[in-house]
């Protein structure tokens, strides 16, 4: 399946892209997908969202269309 990976703010610098299409399986976890994209990338302060809902780095993405990389927020 095809998944859109969106990298926001500082995650864009860490991962080196703002949007990327990747091929993955429903059983893949965000951590596995990110490791394939950028091996060894730092995910310590990163949250992820799947189809606009926060999601564990280690839970399968299922039939998601979008994976968003969410560094610490700073709105307001």
């Amino acid at each position: 399946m095809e998944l859109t990976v969106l990298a926001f703010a500082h995650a864009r610098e860490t991962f080196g892209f703002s949007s990327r299409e990747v091929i993955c399986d429903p059983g893949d976890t965000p951590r596995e997908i990110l490791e394939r994209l950028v091996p060894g990338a730092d995910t310590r302060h990163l949250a992820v969202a799947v189809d606009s809902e926060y999601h564990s780095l280690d839970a399968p993405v299922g039939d998601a269309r979008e994976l968003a990389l969410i560094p610490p927020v700073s709105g307001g």
Partner: protein
Amino acid sequence: MQSTIIFCREPINIPPPPLRSLEIGSILEFHGLVRELEGGRKLSGLFYEAHEPMARKRLEFHLSALQAAHPVDSVEFIHRLDWVPVGEASLYIRVCSSHRAEGLLFLSELVVLLKQDVPIWKLENAPGS
């Protein structure tokens, strides 16, 4: 409760208050302005970026939870994105309620929740600049 969530890319345009009944006794407004000094450095502005659909979803979730805890009549949330010059507002929130106590709690907790998990970011420079 009537709630409005707006993301804009121009200076925030404040609509007239939605006074939906004669039982509104409190209107609270918060303007968050971009300050010149951030961490000791002098800025000319900040660049705001959001995951808009997700930010909207998170805000809707928080507004519902806050409404259960501190019932108010209406809330308007406006966040400006892209470049916001120093001295201009990046954020505007208006809460109308019967009594001020609910409005104050609603407003102050909303800003805390916004800064906790709503996917909006401020950057010192525009991406790619």
